[in-house]
């Protein structure tokens, strides 16, 4: 016989095994999310691209041309789109996961499943959208004749991993807290808006360095995991910046430390999640 519930007492390893057992369901849930999102719309998945492309257009024209940021940054459109691709992966993970438990209340109230499945399914659909954007970015670099074929392309991998670890960790925490305090989902929207401007996406890291100088403030700014991932991505994808752009020292080591912190957070927040999940069915 197996003791029912009481998941808060069993470890993360147990939770991980449970999730692995339900991996097929996880992929079905991701597909459900993606399929149902644009069902009955004529253009379907094209809509996934409209938002980032519009953002790109706004930033490239307003900030690049009108405010003149493009003068110091070569291939400004590619530069902005690289940053946006990274940022929207993180922002989609966070906003999707935060709403995931509340959004699946029908299932949670009626059937026992490892509840981590729902935030993870949101992460999955965010990854899918990220891949589409990434392909567009790749095509764009080919069109302007500067494909990312150089020695630093592998920076993509630590950047994506860093975002996934932090996104999943905070996603788990926020999805659980949002059940008890619905203010969280509104707070998240605001914070995400701030995060867009807290990383060198539409301006360059060099501008920040020049403003702050080599100080603690610059280190804090740089060690934001989103900033690190954005910088890593730019190093890999923004060929136009090679030789021109400056990057912080020890970028890879900073990424490594951030990744380690992310893994610890993921573990801690998963424990918090399993503590809180016992009451989901009656609160949600």
């Amino acid at each position, binding site marked *: 016989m197996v003791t029912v519930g009481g998941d808060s007492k069993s470890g993360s390893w147990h939770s991980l095994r449970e999730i692995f057992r339900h991996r097929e369901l996880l992929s079905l*849930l991701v597909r459900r999310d993606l399929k149902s999102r644009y069902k009955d719309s004529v253009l379907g998945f094209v809509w996934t691209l409209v938002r980032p492309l519009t953002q790109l257009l706004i930033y490239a024209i307003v900030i690049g041309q009108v405010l003149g940021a493009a003068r110091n940054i070569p291939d400004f459109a590619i530069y902005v789109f690289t940053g946006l691709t990274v940022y929207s992966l993180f922002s989609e993970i966070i906003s999707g996961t935060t709403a995931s438990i509340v959004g699946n209340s029908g299932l949670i109230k009626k059937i026992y499943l490892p509840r981590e499945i729902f935030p993870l399914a949101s992460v999955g659909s965010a990854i899918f959208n990220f891949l589409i954007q990434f392909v567009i970015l790749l095509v764009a670099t080919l069109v302007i004749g500067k494909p990312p074929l150089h020695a630093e392309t592998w920076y993509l991998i630590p950047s994506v991993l860093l975002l996934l670890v932090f996104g999943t960790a905070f996603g788990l925490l926020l999805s659980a807290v949002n059940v008890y*305090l619905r203010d969280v989902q509104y707070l998240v929207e605001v914070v995400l808006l701030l995060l867009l401007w807290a990383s060198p996406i539409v301006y360059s890291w060099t501008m920040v360095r020049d403003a702050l100088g080599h100080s603690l403030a610059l280190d804090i700014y740089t060690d934001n995991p989103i900033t690190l991932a954005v910088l890593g991505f730019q190093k890999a994808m923004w060929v136009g910046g090679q030789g021109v752009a400056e990057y912080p020292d020890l970028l890879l080591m900073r990424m490594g430390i951030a990744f380690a912190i992310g893994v610890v957070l993921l573990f801690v927040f998963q424990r918090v999640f399993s503590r809180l999940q016992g009451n989901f069915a009656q609160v949600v």
Partner: protein
Amino acid sequence: MTTNLTENGTATGAGGEAPEVVRVTDVSKRFVIRKDNSLKERLVAFGRGREHREEFWALKDVSITMRAGTTVALIGHNGSGKSTLLKVIGGIIDPTSGSVSRRGRIAALLELGAGFHPDLTGRENVYLNASILGLSREQTEERFDEILSFSGIGDFIDTQVKFYSSGMYVRLAFAVAVHTDPDLLLVDEVLAVGDEAFQRKCLDKIRSFQEEGRTIILVTHNLNQVTELADRAVLLNRGAVVFDGDPGEAVTEFRNILEDRRVVEAEAEAAVQAHKHPGSVAEHGRVIDARVFAVGREPGEPVQPGDDVRIEVTLEHDTGIDDWMCAIQIDNTMGLPVYGTTTARIGADLSRLRARRTVAIVLKDAQFGAGKYFVNASLMDSAGRHLSDMPQACSFDVPYYPLAVGVIHAVPEVVDLSS
């Protein structure tokens, strides 16, 4: 977290009893109802949080064990804790204290189609829902045709389920759930859906589950289903087990609780009415007594088929009532109503009721099958509202008849047409 029952000997206990499938030990569940839900409200109420929460115990020290192959019905009035108990067994909510152990694959029919997504087609939803209930993709593919034919959905399977009628929706969901091959099936009030033909199909499926030795836990308000399907019933009242055993007795016990509650509620309502309209006096009618006997026999003597059964009901009314009727209903021991009539139905023209008086209703040439029968007597107003009820006011027995069973009596005969 795994307790192997065979080690401590209870699993295959002495006497070859079936192994335990579910063991609920001292389970209590407390619900806290918060009255403040936004951040602002919580900050304002911070420090005196106690005032902003209300507690109540949905379950109190419930202990039950269920053995493989049994069908257990959980009964109780609304809010008695039966659905909570089912959810605790299903692992959907954690108990506040106590523990639940169980073995085998579980399928919970707590709400049909809980995992259905309106924008996906029936086919996509079958795969999704089967996966939620624990089937792999290959298993679902194997059973897909069976599921489709059981549901009777036909060509609509490739239509989005938001265009389904509610009956189709439920049929598809039930079809998926029963094809997941569960060892333990939790059923909550879902047998009351679909048309009659489909309900029959569902009940047949439940019966074949019973035959295959699966364990079923059933929550229902249909007391006939309890006596028909279950071999054991657990009666819950205010979160505690008040009866555990034979379904027939449990149903009788439950009727008593319901009657007590109805009386309390009726009194409360009368008090509210009296408060609202201080001028009017609440109605005060009463059934005082009822007796039953066969004409020509002593009261208490068995009633033979063909006797005239005489039921005498004594009633009174404090303020007097012009339009009234006296109603009787006869139930068998399973709680199934087998006969009922009222003085209005018979066409009797009764004068104003005030002082105590007795009305007799005679059932001529009554042909009841063998068994015990209970008579419920009621005083009603002309609109059919119950002013006073006396459930199981009296009873009579019909002697054992070797040639047939059932609630009506008829002499059977065989005619062999081939000779």
